[in-house]
């Protein structure tokens, strides 16, 4: 859901950006590391702790074998990502290690993790080993040690502090009259309780499509905002379908999807329209910033 947090967490521990990691939503598990590990937790603040000591987010840390990580109160955001050097090594299905809950495939047995599950971690790569090498083996009385590999608070804030989510006009935006489009952009929606990885239902003002005609099913994208006949918009997310038949009024830009991923039921959300060019510039900027950050982190290693 929050690919930005996943990418950064992986980079912090020296993995490829798309190595498999754990996503935990609203509440976190208790995880025991059976072998020594280099980990990082990014995204929402679910109060991670090791032996009752708060563990910082957005920072790589080395944990000893036998260490347990727990989570507590949700302080901000909605979901956190735990990356481990070496990546989570569940068997890929259809080319991916992700879990697809709806079809019950992928990840760990196609389902959410339960107490007692054991999850295999791969061997740390070169970069990961160098990061671990920079931290003393003996972590003293603590079972973990912080590395200097981290994102500063103002940097993470700069990624997440945008209040209004940017969208481009949807393929069917012309099926909505001016009043409906104005209503959409003026509204502050509330993310309803019946929201999940497939999509968020947006409660509040109802939005009316001009042409109530049935549409032939057509492709949609992550971030597409569909408006069914009932008028309650649906913002499609990671587990979305590939196609749909409800008119799409707008698409959240790729560079802002992480903002949506860190909203939870009860949170508010508003949208503003930008051009395709703006959206591509934003994505390119985001990519450059991540590259630059990673470069700085790697330079510090040398």
């Amino acid at each position, binding site marked *: 859901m929050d690919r930005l947090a996943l990418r950064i967490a992986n980079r912090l521990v020296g993995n490829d950006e798309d190595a498999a990691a754990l996503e935990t939503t609203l509440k976190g598990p208790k995880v025991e590391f059976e072998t020594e590990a280099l980990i990082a937790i990014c995204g929402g603040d679910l109060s991670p702790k090791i032996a009752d000591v708060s563990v910082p987010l957005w920072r790589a840390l080395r944990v000893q074998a036998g260490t347990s990580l727990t989570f507590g109160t949700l302080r901000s955001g909605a979901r956190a990502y735990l990356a481990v050097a070496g990546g989570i090594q569940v068997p890929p299905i259809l080319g991916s290690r992700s879990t697809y809950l*709806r*079809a019950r495939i992928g990840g760990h047995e196609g389902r959410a993790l339960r107490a007692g599950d054991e999850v295999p971690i791969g061997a740390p790569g070169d970069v990961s080993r160098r990061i671990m090498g920079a931290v003393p083996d003996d972590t003293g009385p603590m079972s973990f040690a912080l590395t200097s590999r981290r994102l500063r608070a103002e940097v993470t804030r700069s990624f997440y502090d945008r209040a209004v989510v940017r969208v481009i006009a949807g393929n069917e935006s012309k099926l909505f009259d001016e009043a409906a489009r104005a209503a959409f952009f003026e509204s502050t929606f509330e993310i309803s309780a019946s929201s999940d990885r497939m999509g968020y239902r947006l409660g509040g003002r109802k939005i009316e499509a001009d042409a109530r005609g*049935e549409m*032939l*099913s057509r492709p949609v994208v992550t971030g597409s905002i569909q408006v069914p*006949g009932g008028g309650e918009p649906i913002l499609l997310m990671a587990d979305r379908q590939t196609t749909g*038949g409800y008119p799409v009024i707008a698409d959240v830009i790729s560079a802002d999807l992480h903002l949506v991923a860190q909203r939870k039921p009860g949170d508010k959300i508003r949208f503003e329209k930008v051009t*395709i060019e703006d959206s591509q510039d934003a*994505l390119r900027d985001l990519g450059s910033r991540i590259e630059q950050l990673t470069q700085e982190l790697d330079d510090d290693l040398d």
Partner: protein
Amino acid sequence: MTLGEDAGEGTLARVRSAIELLETGAPLGIVEVVAGFATVAVHYDPRLVTYRSFAAEVSSLLADAATAPTPKPRLIEIPVCYGDDLGPDLDVVAEHADLEPEEVIEIHCGRNYLVHMIGFAPGFPYLGGMSERIATPRRDSPRKTIPAGSVGIAGSQTGVYPIETPGGWQLIGRTPARLFRPDRDPPSLLRPGDLVKFVAIEAEEYEVRGKGES
């Protein structure tokens, strides 16, 4: 890109042709091609190419599109137990069409359907050629969960849900056949260009076949 105004065979041929040209032409930045009934989406990586230049290259690739040769269609029979708990909206469809439920079933089973696209969910077939007589609008509010194997109608389209998902279609029956098996290659039972025939079965046969398919 929109390649037609309807869900006819001509449109399907253009869609399949476009897919073929895009997948072989492989313009720089292309990630995936997803087909709708009359629309094709080309997913691309904007870090490799801008929207404008990618759109231009796609247009020029498709400019001289000729219909690609289509392989012979397969005929696949899909057994369906209609109505009651397995088809809770059969009466809604019947009422909308001013027909008896039995007549709706007869019409639904009465012709072969062309698989236009697989989408919405893994293995989900979009079928063309349904009689307008039983066309029924989608529900105003989608159901939050629809059982796997459900057979439905939405507007002029009919289809089968291969996995449990939310959806807004009117449900008229259920099939014990499994349309999506990730261990199979390809994982989808149906392919664009296939012909599908629905065959009505009774509840007992549905139970028996269901056990056989698992």
